Structure formats: C-alpha cells, structure tokens
C-alpha cells in the first residue's frame, strides 16, 4: 500500500544499464513514487529542464566513452537547484570521485550495484521520509 505523501514524490533515474534501470524503477514505483527513466545525460538534462524532481539517482558513467558524465548532470541540477536531492552511483568510486561528487552537491555517493532496500532507505531519508 502506498504511504501517504509518497505518491507525490517524483524521482529521476539515470543509468544506461537496463538491467539496473528497469528493476530500480519498478521498485520505487512499487513504493508509490512517480519515476522517470533516462538512459543518456542529455535525456536527463532535458527532463530536469522541464520537470521538478524530489530525487535524482544517477550513474556516474553513463556513456560508452567512460567519462564521468553523471557529474555534468549533477552540475546542471545544482545550477537549477529546486531543492532536488541527488544520489550518485558508480561501480568505481575512488576517494577523489566521491570528494568531487560531494563538492558538486551530491547528497549521497554509493557503490553499484546497491541492494534496492538500502538505496530506498537513503532515498526516503533524503526526501524527508525516513523509513525504519
């Protein structure tokens, strides 16, 4: 059953791996959230330009070129800042990357893959709806 207030929460997921994107979207939808999915940084940026999100969960590396494109999206979110919380995920998190992501305004930095209940725990805490 959807908890009060949860259905109003809008989440954007950015990841180019369908095997991660689809189950994550399904999980959060199952918890009553509205979820948009983006598979490219430009798609995420286009969505951020026109919609407000309570939370963005983004993969640091979302193209085959191997750069940290997720950080560009994070910059764009913070440039527009509507009080959106951001969780950065990456399979390769060094101390430097974590430091850079936090300096750019990431509220959480987690290693991929992350168990969905753990991800949801942080997500709801950041959205002001802590789960026990």
């Amino acid at each position, binding site marked *: 059953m959807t908890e009060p207030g949860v259905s109003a929460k809008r989440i954007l997921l950015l990841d180019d791996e369908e095997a991660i994107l689809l189950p994550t979207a399904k999980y959060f939808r199952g918890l009553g959230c509205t979820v948009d999915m983006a598979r490219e940084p430009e798609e995420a940026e286009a969505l951020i*330009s026109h919609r407000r999100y309570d939370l963005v969960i983004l993969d640091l590396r979302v193209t085959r070129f191997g750069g940290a494109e997720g950080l560009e999206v994070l910059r764009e979110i913070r440039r527009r800042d509507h009080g959106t919380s951001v969780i950065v995920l990456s399979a390769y998190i060094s101390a430097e990357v974590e430091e850079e992501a936090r300096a750019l305004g990431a509220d959480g930095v987690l290693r991929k893959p992350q168990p969905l209940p753990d991800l949801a725990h942080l997500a709801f805490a950041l959205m002001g709806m802590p789960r026990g």
Partner: protein
Amino acid sequence: MGEQVLLDRILEPGSLSVHFQPVMEVHGSRVKPHYLEALIRGPHGTTAESPAILFEYARKKNRESDVDRACVGAILGAASSLPADTTVGINVHASTLAMDAGFVKFLAAGLSARKLSPRRLVVEIVEHAPPWDVVGFGTAIEALRRLGARIALDDVGLGHSNYMMILECRPDYFKVDRHFVSGCSRDFHRRAVIASVAQLARPFGARVVAEGVEDLADLAALKRLGINLIQGFLFGQPGLASDVLASAAMLHRRSGAAGRSASRTHAGR
C-alpha cells in the same frame, strides 16, 4: 546500451505522431479556421513523447536539424490527407534554418513529393538558443518566401523571439505567447503588451495571433484590441486532423447560425 537509443527511436520512420490545433479567425460572433498548426509528439512511451522534452533533448544532442527534418516528414505526410484548401503551420527552429543549408530544399522536395502547394504552408519560427548564423538564417527566410510559404514568428515577447528576430523574419504573423494572453481581460499590463505587439505588426503588414486563449473574457478583450486570429483550448485542443477539422467546421456552422440569428434579432428591433 548504445549512446543514442532515444535519438534513434525519434528518427525512426513512423515514430513521431502529428496533432493539429486550429488558429481560428473571429469576426463578431462568426468563427472559421484560418490555419492548422501541426504539433509533434515524440515516440509513444518515451520521455520524448512530450514535445518540450523532445526538442530540449534534440538541442542537448545538437541534433535539432535532424529532428526538425523528421518532424517535417511526419507533418507533410499527415498534411497530405487534409482538404486542399487547408493551410498548415509547421514549427521550425531558427537554428535549423541558420545551420542546415539544405533544409529549405528538403522542405520543398517534401512538398513536391506529396503534391502540396507551398502556399498552404506557414513556417512558424521558434528559437530557444542563440547565437545563430544571421546570414544563413536570412538566406533561408528568403528561400522560404521565394517558395511561396508564409512566415510566423512564434512566442513573440519571450526569450529570443525579440526585435532582432522580427527584423530578420519580417513575419506575416506575430504569435503572442500565452504568457501575455492568458488572463489579459483582468490585467491592464498584459493588454498593454498585446496592444504594443499589434501596433508593431501593422507596418510589417502582419497579423497577430493570440495563443493560449481559454476563456470568453480574454477573447472579448482581444477582440477589443483588434486581434481576430485566436488559438487555444477555447476553440479546441490539439487532436487528430479529422477531429480538429470536424470540430472547427461545426464551430463555423454554429457561429454562422448564431450570427444570422443575432442579425435577425437586431433587424427586428
């Protein structure tokens, strides 16, 4: 997954759908369709189904011109089933006209292939991101005029649809954005902006289209300002060509009947 999954879907033949919304001409109580603006929806079930997201994404990918070409293809396909006297408005980004030197030829070839007269075309210029090549843009506008198309400047008063664009386009239509139109009956300052656009349009020999008209009070205020080209939910939401044409024709018939009845009542007094 590949980098351009969404773009590939957008550019796939048949993935874009076309809706139309009428621009209605209003004189007294009589209304009739003036032209139909074609509105694009991106691939069903994707984030780009929303046109705002579709075009923002195309801009971010630097592929506006490719997406504009795909839109033109879809719109001309839909327009070929319209009655021969229907004029169609097509939105084109100023950046596409400026940067894609072959765009007007592409458009002309598309019209010719579907046996559509360019005189049935209103090219609505939209712009979201400067800077653009003024020379290339001017050349494209000139080519569109030679072709016989009319030019509309969209979103007048907003963003980059400014005085410079008016000079570069010399539009046949000034489209005033809903931001100024909605609620104008209750806001003197909004009416002042609309009146200034109407005054500006006059020496260009252009007509003003009010976008986003949703209630009768705003319609009356616009008519008092001399604006008689009206677009908005008051006269119909965007829809399939057949539905929009049927609804516009019904409005035309009813307004004609209402006009005749009003004349009889007036004459009887």
